[in-house]
């Protein structure tokens, strides 16, 4: 094959060069294994005769999971909800998946989860907040269900249920605010009074 072109040829074609190198390989019968940097022979393993690791063609019918849009930091909205309980978006979202339809301002901490706030119509409400990072929405939804079950007692034995929703990263439950006169305290105040006092009050 090397006769196909002269060794001093200055214009060989690719095909002629391939023939030439093939001829050289055929003439050389010595072993020339692939070696690494340390001079050790490298042996390539044959791939398994399976298709498990073969690249797959994407399913044309595959729909990517629906994800919530990133929060918009406009400075006016409440902090975004913790991503911990960001599940897939339900087609029929529950009441707690929706933002609170009414704005609550002037929140004052009352203790534990309780806050006193003012609605957009100026009325005072009791707001119970659950940390959305630690507590799933089922807690607030359960309590709202119970209040709804007791709706004929609203305003008498139990507070009136106003709303349920999401407020920032918290689940919020709005109830009517119960005015408790400090001169006639609730039982807890009475117990605290007795605890702090050296003698039982008359």
């Amino acid at each position, binding site marked *: 094959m090397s006769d196909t072109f002269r060794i001093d040829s200055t214009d060989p074609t690719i095909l002629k060069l391939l023939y030439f190198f093939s001829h050289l390989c055929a003439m050389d019968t010595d072993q020339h294994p692939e070696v690494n940097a340390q001079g050790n022979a490298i042996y390539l393993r044959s791939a398994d005769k399976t298709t498990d690791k073969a690249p797959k063609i994407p399913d044309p019918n595959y729909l990517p999971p629906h994800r919530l849009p990133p929060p918009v930091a406009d400075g006016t909205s409440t902090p975004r909800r913790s991503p911990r309980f960001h599940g897939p978006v339900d087609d029929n979202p529950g009441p707690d998946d929706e933002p609170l339809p009414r704005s609550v301002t002037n929140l004052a901490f009352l203790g534990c989860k309780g806050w006193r706030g003012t609605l957009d119509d100026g009325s005072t409400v009791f707001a119970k907040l659950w940390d959305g990072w630690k507590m799933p929405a089922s807690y607030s939804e359960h309590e709202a269900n119970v209040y709804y*079950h007791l709706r004929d007692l609203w305003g008498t034995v139990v507070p009136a249920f106003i709303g349920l929703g999401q407020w920032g990263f918290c689940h919020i439950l709005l109830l009517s605010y*119960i005015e408790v006169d400090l*001169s*006639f*305290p609730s039982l807890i105040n*009475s*117990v605290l009074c*007795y605890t702090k006092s050296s003698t039982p*009050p008359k």
Partner: protein
Amino acid sequence: MLYQVKYTPQIGRNIVKAFKQIHARGVLHGDVRPENILVRPDQSVVVIDFEMSELMAPREALMSEMSEVKHLLASFIHSLGVYS
């Protein structure tokens, strides 16, 4: 700050009545504590915090909770030194 306690038997009756009304609707409060009972100036009672409550509770559980309410009242009255 110390408050002047003016416990009256009417408050106790209202507390029992409130829980009876709640139990009549099959709701077990589940967390009977003084913190969850508010008393209005007119001595009416409001029960709050139904986070631990249970709907469609069995009758035995409701009766047990009512005993718990009465025990709470008794211990409270005892703490005030009111025995009438």
